[in-house]
């Protein structure tokens, strides 16, 4: 007599053996099937940090769509799963836990707020899941180096180095610093001072402002009295705007060198609100294009077609750049994909050109800060935002 139960068991065993025969990695690798790769992303989908979260994710998604339309990577389509961290450390831990353990994604790409990403770092490192950081600038995300964590964002120390290099390139002889000394400010101020020391330079003046400052008369007068020709600004947009207003009022017009905390010169000009005060202000962007550039036409069309409410922004481009980096790693890891192979492939990427970054991506076994090309942008009063140069940081 035909034993149906035995036949079913044999069939199931055979199927499992066949699956194992096709690819040993599939049975072991979370988030991987014969035709899909599940990638998790986390960042702020709501609240004021959504530019670095949701909007960057939209950039990631159009890169995935483009690859999927061309057949995927080694026959596998990329599937993006989003989680909201609301720029909040506790939410970031919960979001990454869910993506790793419940959704069982193969790799992570995301992180827009440093505090949130820093909080999630331990979980990510312990899970040994490949992670590409999109926009969190805190050095602690990628330093000390964790084998599975890579950053496509500029880091605070890279930007600090670039600020001093740029000031010197522009002929700065009497370089001064005005900085905040909270956790954010110190993460930039400390490497900046180390860089001064390394170059054997002493700042001509070193002043402080609080994030809530409503007046910068004392700071401006002290810097002016010191004869500063260049001021490196390590401030949030609010105190920076107050500083620029007061500098203009007191006829102090040095070169003002900002950083990516003031990433939007057009909005900053409005916040300063005093004609001509931003004329000598330059700042750092992570990407070498402004949204109106013809070079990003392709991404504009893709973003605006997929997300009808969006107008292409630099935050979309953050996502585009980091997604190109991750997907290149997946391609290099080959068809028999494992997390270990992806980690090795990402660490081995050298001089890989990305559409939107200031220079090529290069990683190594010991240094996972893979983007070292801060882009300088400025906006002449009433004019458009322009890219004015790139500094390579060693």
């Amino acid at each position, binding site marked *: 007599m035909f034993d149906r139960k035995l036949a079913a068991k044999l069939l199931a065993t055979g199927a499992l053996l066949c699956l194992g025969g096709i690819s040993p990695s599939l049975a072991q690798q979370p988030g991987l099937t014969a035709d899909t790769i599940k990638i998790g992303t986390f960042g702020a989908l709501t609240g004021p940090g959504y530019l670095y979260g949701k909007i960057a994710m939209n950039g990631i998604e159009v890169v995935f769509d483009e690859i999927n339309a061309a057949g995927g990577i080694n026959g596998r389509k990329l599937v993006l799963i989003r989680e909201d961290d609301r720029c909040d450390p506790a939410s970031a831990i919960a979001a990454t836990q869910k993506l790793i353990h419940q959704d069982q994604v193969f790799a992570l790409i995301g992180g827009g707020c440093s505090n949130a990403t820093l909080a999630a770092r331990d979980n990510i490192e312990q899970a040994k899941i490949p992670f590409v950081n999109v926009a969190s600038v805190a050095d602690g995300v990628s330093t000390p180096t964790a084998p599975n964590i890579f950053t496509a964002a500029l880091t605070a120390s890279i930007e600090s180095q670039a600020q001093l290099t740029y000031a010197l390139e522009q002929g700065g002889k009497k370089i001064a610093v005005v900085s905040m000394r909270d956790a954010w400010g110190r993460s930039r101020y400390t490497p900046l001072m180390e860089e001064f020391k390394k170059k054997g330079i002493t700042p001509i003046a070193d002043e402080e402002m609080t994030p809530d400052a409503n007046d910068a008369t004392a700071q401006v007068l*002290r810097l002016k009295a010191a004869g500063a020709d260049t001021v490196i600004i390590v401030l949030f947009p609010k105190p920076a705007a*107050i500083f620029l207003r007061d500098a203009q*009022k007191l006829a102090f017009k040095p070169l003002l060198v900002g950083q990516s905390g003031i990433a939007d010169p057009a909005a900053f000009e409005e916040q300063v609100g005093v004609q001509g005060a931003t004329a000598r202000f330059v700042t750092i962007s992570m990407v070498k294009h402004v949204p109106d550039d013809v070079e990003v036409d392709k991404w504009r069309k893709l973003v605006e077609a997929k997300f009808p409410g969006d107008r292409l922004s630099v935050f979309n481009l953050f996502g585009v750049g980091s997604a190109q980096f991750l997907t290149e790693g997946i391609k290099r890891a080959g068809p028999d994909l494992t997390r270990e192979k992806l980690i090795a492939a990402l660490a081995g990427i050298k001089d890989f050109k990305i559409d939107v970054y200031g220079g090529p991506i290069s990683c190594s076994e010991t240094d996972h800060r893979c983007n070292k090309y801060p882009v300088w942008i400025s906006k002449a009063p009433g004019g458009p935002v322009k890219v004015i140069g790139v500094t390579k940081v060693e």
Partner: protein
Amino acid sequence: MLLSYLLLSGVTTGALYALVALGLVVVNKATGILNFSQGELFMFSGFIAWSLHVQLGLGYLPSFLGTVLAGFALGLTIDRVAFRPVKSSDVIAIVLATVGISFVLKGAARIIWGGKSDYLSFPPITSPDPIVVGPVLIIPQQIVAFLGAVAIMLGFAAFFRYSRLGKMMQATADNKKAATLVGIRTDRIYTLAFGTGAAVAAAAAVLAAPLTLLYPDMGFSFFIKGFAAAVLGGLASLPGAVLGGFLVGIVEALAGGYIHSSVMEVSAFIMIMIVLIVRPTGLLSFYQARRV
């Protein structure tokens, strides 16, 4: 020259601190409550002024008047909604209610004005160019803020000295039981005190708005400085609040200019600690002369 710049900067910010302190003292004098939402009333009023001036296109003066009225109405509403229901409870419950209101106002500001920009800019009401008079450099925007604040303080002094309502508020503050016995409705006086405190915060916000940027978290730092000024002058003394505000502003500016910018924040508090060691009830706490 340096001294003149720093003094002008100090008296301008000091005048704004004095207004925040005045609001705190008015409420504290009349009700015995320290209103921890005073900073958020200041912040919320700044956003109202921005809406009136920038979004609706009203002139600065109509925006000023509209904001002060809105602030007054906000104070009355908060008293009705949040303070009256707990007024029979102990002081801690009422103080907690003021803390709760501060969170509500901050959240409401995020909902109403959030998502437009990180910080909202209030257009300058005078030319930003300084005027040089001999060795002194005058910044018109700061002068407007300073004179506006002084005018409000004088108006306030006149209100308490000459108006019937002001005298009733003083009487209630001095002796609530006696005030009730002579027919003053002290409940109404409490409500009026909250409304007046909020209106003063609103006036300070409109004067400060062109000098700073607006964002939902801005209230706390103004509250701390206003509170410091009020403590310095004596928490129950209106002239003390004014004196305290000016002293905090001037000490901050001079310390920043002559010592280092890193001591600006702590300088005022060091001064307050010294004053409170010498005179624990504040500089003008002796100012208790009662008009009969």
